[in-house]
Structures are given as structure tokens and as C-alpha cells.
């Protein structure tokens, strides 16, 4: 206990010792107002901001995932010259010109979640979608005893997240040669979409033993479809969302990969602030893939608004 205290004290002192006048402004860009993942990111940035005495301003396109709108918002924000930017590009290729504009305006920018195809960043904070897909996939297949019929519910066609997660799924399948992949269809990361796709798949395939969903809303959609048809299968998702955790608790969902935007928002903001305050920052933070299941779901039950940001050191040492 004493050691923890002195460690915390040391960190706090070193922290405050190199703090300039607080109150820096950080502009945060996320993709849309409707996906809870990005809400978790925003909450993370706000929580970190409060702890670090900086101000964050949220920029979200009014039309969800609108590329031209995010571009315009970047251009408008550059006029205001925030001290730093934390950036999730709506599309990792199409927003490159926006990043270049930010670079030209000499505003330090940290990239989180979707790795931009180009541009100069203070750091990239993300989770390895591939590793998460792989880990979650293996969990499902192990639970299935290594055999059976599996379907994959992909995300949005063309999104980096979806592509990498699905790659993880398919590689997991390679390690279990007795499991058969029946179909791989996009559900657009959306619940209703995934529900209908799953219903259609159930028509075509009378026996489905496992569902690999690239995110939680789709996993839930698949579960609804299964329940509606009176069928059972093992389902896994990715996000570690509250809803998924509730379902894991009740035994309906097998597992969910931890890809919770909260930590990325926290860490992205922390790094942006450290960079402004001339403190050392890592160039890349890749969060370890954690699979949330019946054994370890407890910490995930707290809603993001009530969580505290983890210290950077703790995240790095994981």
C-alpha cells in the first residue's frame, strides 16, 4: 500500500512538475453520433480531459460517416487553431488530405482507432483488430469443440476494422480444420441488418453451430434471430459493450472481444496532452486483445461514464 502511495505521489509530482498552465484545447473527431463505440471514445476523452485540466471539443458529422463533412469540419477547426487534435478518420484513406492540412497547419494530431493511410501523427492508439478477431475466433471454436458449422457476420464492406477482424476470424478457422465455414456476409455493423442476414442464413443452412460477429450489435442481432427461430448456436462479438456483458452474464453470448473505445479515448487524449506539455510519448499504443467471457466480465459491468482513465504507464505495461 505504501509503495503504491509513493509511486502515485512520484507520478503526480513528475506530472505536475512539468505542467504548463492548464486549459489547452483539444479537438476530437469521431465518425458518428449513433454508434455507441464512438460515444465511449468521446466519454474517454472527456474523462481524461477533466483529469488533466484540458478542454475537449467534439466534432461529429451531422450526416453519419460523411466524408466531405468531416473534411469541412477539419478545415473549420484549423481556422480555430486548437492546441491539439485527436482524430478518428471516417475513412482511413479518404481523409488523408485532411490530415495533411492539419500537418501543414502545424497542429499536433494523434490518430486513434482507425489507422490513417498516411500523415504525420504524434502517435497511433488502437487495438489490433486482427488479434482480437483471432482471439475471439479461437475462443468460439474451442467452445465448439473444434468442429461444427460456422458463419461470419462482417462489418461494413471496405472498412479497415471489418477487414482485419474477419481476417482474424478466418485465420482462427484455419487452426481448427474440422470446423466448416458456411458463409461470410456483411451486416454493416448494425443490429437489424445482422438480424435479417442471420435469418436468411438460417434459411439456407439448417445447421449453424457458431456465429462470428465482427461487432456486438451484430452479435446481438444474430442472437435475436436465433431466438426467434428457436435455434441455438454459440455467438461471439467484439466491443465489450455493456449489452454484450449483460448477455455474457446471462449465458446467452459466449464472449466478446474487448474493443472498447473508452480506453482509446483516454489514452489518445493523454498522449495528446503529454505531447503538448513536452513530456515523452510513445509512438504507438496497441491495446492487448482481451476476450471478455463468463470468467472476467466483472470490470466491464461499470458503465463508461463511471470509469476512470487508466494511467498511461499501466496501459503500456500491459
Amino acid at each position: 500500500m505504501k509503495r503504491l502511495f509513493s509511486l502515485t505521489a512520484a507520478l503526480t509530482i513528475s506530472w505536475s512538475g512539468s505542467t504548463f498552465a492548464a486549459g489547452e484545447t483539444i479537438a476530437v473527431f469521431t465518425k458518428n453520433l449513433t454508434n455507441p463505440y464512438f460515444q465511449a471514445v468521446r466519454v474517454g476523452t472527456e474523462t481524461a480531459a477533466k483529469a488533466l485540466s484540458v478542454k475537449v471539443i467534439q466534432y461529429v458529422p451531422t450526416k453519419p460517416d460523411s466524408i466531405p463533412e468531416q473534411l469541412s469540419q477539419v478545415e473549420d477547426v484549423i481556422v480555430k487553431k486548437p492546441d491539439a487534435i485527436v482524430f478518428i478518420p471516417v475513412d482511413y484513406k479518404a481523409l488523408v488530405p485532411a490530415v495533411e492540412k492539419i500537418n501543414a497547419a502545424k497542429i499536433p494530431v494523434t490518430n486513434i482507432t482507425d489507422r490513417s493511410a498516411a500523415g504525420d501523427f504524434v502517435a497511433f492508439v488502437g487495438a489490433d483488430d486482427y488479434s482480437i478477431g483471432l482471439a475471439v475466433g479461437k475462443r468460439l471454436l474451442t467452445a465448439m469443440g473444434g468442429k461444427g458449422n460456422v458463419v461470419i457476420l462482417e462489418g461494413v464492406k471496405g472498412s479497415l476494422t471489418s477487414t482485419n477482424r474477419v481476417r482474424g476470424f478466418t485465420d482462427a478457422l484455419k487452426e481448427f480444420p474440422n470446423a466448416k465455414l458456411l458463409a461470410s456476409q456483411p451486416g454493416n455493423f448494425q443490429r437489424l441488418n445482422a438480424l435479417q442476414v442471420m435469418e436468411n442464413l438460417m434459411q439456407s443452412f439448417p445447421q449453424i453451430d457458431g456465429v462470428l460477429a465482427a461487432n456486438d450489435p451484430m452479435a446481438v442481432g444474430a442472437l435475436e434471430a436465433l431466438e426467434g427461430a428457436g435455434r441455438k448456436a454459440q455467438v461471439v462479438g467484439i466491443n465489450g459493450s455493456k449489452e454484450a456483458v449483460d448477455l455474457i452474464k446471462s449465458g446467452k453470448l459466449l464472449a466478446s472481444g474487448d474493443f472498447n473505445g473508452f480506453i482509446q479515448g483516454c489514452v489518445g487524449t493523454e498522449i495528446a496532452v503529454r505531447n503538448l506539455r513536452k513530456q515523452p510519448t510513445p509512438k504507438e499504443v496497441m491495446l492487448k486483445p482481451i476476450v471478455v467471457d463468463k470468467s472476467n466480465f466483472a470490470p466491464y459491468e461499470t458503465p463508461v461514464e463511471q470509469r476512470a482513465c487508466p494511467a498511461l504507464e499501466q496501459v503500456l505495461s500491459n
Partner: protein
Amino acid sequence: MSTRTLVFSQLARVPGVAIALVGLCGIFAATSPGFATPANIANVLTQSTILLLLALPMTLIIMTEGLDLSMGAVLTFASIVLAMIAVGTGSITLAVAGGLAVGLCFGFLNGALIALLDIPPFITTLGTLGIAQGLSLVVTDGQSVVGIPRTIEAFYSGTVAGIPLPIIIAALAYTLTHVLLYRTRFGTYIFALGGNREALKVAGISVRGMLIRVYMFGGLMAGFAALLMTARLNSAHPTAGIGMEFDAIAALAVGGTSFERGNGWLLGTLLGVVTVGVLRNGLNLLAVPSSAQVACIGALVIAALFIDGLRGEQ
């Protein structure tokens, strides 16, 4: 006449959109330090150019009692074709030609379906929207098209005598459309298409031919808009232009063009587009939360038409 009535009646002549524009500029200039700077003004105007390129032909189309809901999707597909040609051949010229060709083809398709098959414009263009959107998705499989020679960016970020190139392009487009509408036979025929098709027939002008030309003009401008969009993104994406036709329609409605009466006002369209751009820019600068921004846009559109409706009765 009392002074108050005099002033009021003069004010009543000033179009609602101008009042809205001046009002918004005033509010934002007062509350946001960065708003009224040359850099930001150039910013807002440049951001408005793509929408203007769509709104201008839309005004003409609406004057012919028509509508083109496919413009955003056609822009998107044209930009994808443009990008693919640029990546494949390395030639920007060929790429631009390809994009314009796509626009013209869809314009022809729209016009032909409307004129020859008598399908109402709303439905026709809803259908071609689906076709263009579908083609965009299928051809790209959801991915951005990248690898375009960087010279294309000059179309959006280049300047001539300090003025951003898009603004010059938009100014040229406006002038062209203005001349077309108010100074040529073609323009007179467009007016006739809107209220007096009989006159055209009597004069021996093919109504069908005119309609096809009007929609082809729309397609052509969508092609130019595609060029600017591709230059802006240095890539093409199958969702880039989604919904822009609705934005264009709203902008020109704010500008005073009426569906019911089919009277178009080109300057009003320009003002409407700039007003919407100013609103968005100002709200961003003020860091108004996104959900409030969404509501504001709706409020602006309704308020503008409400005011116009009021004044129409005087």
C-alpha cells in the same frame, strides 16, 4: 405612406435568404473571432462550391417542374470512374473526360426516361439513384479508390491570384448558367417548359429534346462536381456524395426557388448555398454540439420557407 410602411415595403423586396445570410454572418462575426477572417471566408466559399455546382442545374430542372434525386449518386459514380481512369492511365485529362461522360450518360438516361417514357422525374431519378449507387458499390466493393496522381489536388487546393480555384470554377459555372438561362433561347425554352409547354410545341421545339438537354446539363455539372470532390479527397469513395441532392434542393428552397410555382431564381440559389455553408461553418466554429447542429439545419430550412410564405402573401 408613413416612414415605417415605406421601410417595411422596401425590406419586403429584399429576399428572405439575403436577410438570413446577412443575419447569420452578423451573429457569427460577433460571437466567433475566427469567422470574419479572409482565410475563413475563403474556406466557407470553397466548401460551398461542390454543392453550388449541383444546385445550379437543379434550379433549372425544378423550373421545368422536374427534380433530380440522382445527382449525389451520379457525382459519386462519376468520381469513382474518374479516379479509376486516373489510377489506371495516369492521365488526368482522360479521367476528367471519363467523369464528365458518366455525368452526361446519366443525365441522358434521366432525361430519356422522363421525356420518352413519361415516368415522373421523382421516380425516375429515384431509380437512377439506385442504379448509380449500386454501380458505385459494386465497382469498388466498398473501398476507396486511391493512387491518383497528386496533380489532381490542384483543382481543389490551387489558387489563381490568391483566389482558390474552386471558387473560380464555381463563378464560371454560375456565369454560364446565368447566361444560359437569361440570355439564350435555351433559357427561354426552360421557362416555357415550366409553365407553358404548349408554346414550345407551337414554336416547333421538341419538348422531349429540351427535357433531355436539361437533365444532361445536370449530369454534366455533376461530372464537374465529381472532379472537385475527387480533387478534394485525392481519392474516390462510394459514399462520398450521398444525400447531396437533398442538400442542394434545400439550399435552393432556402434561396427562394419554389416547387409549386416552378419559379427559379439563380441568384437566390447561390445565396441559399452560401447561407447553408455559413451556417455549418459558424456552428463548427462555435463548437455547437453536433446534435444541435442537425436541428439547426432543419430549423433554418423551415424558417426560410416560412418567412417566404409570409411575405408571399403581402
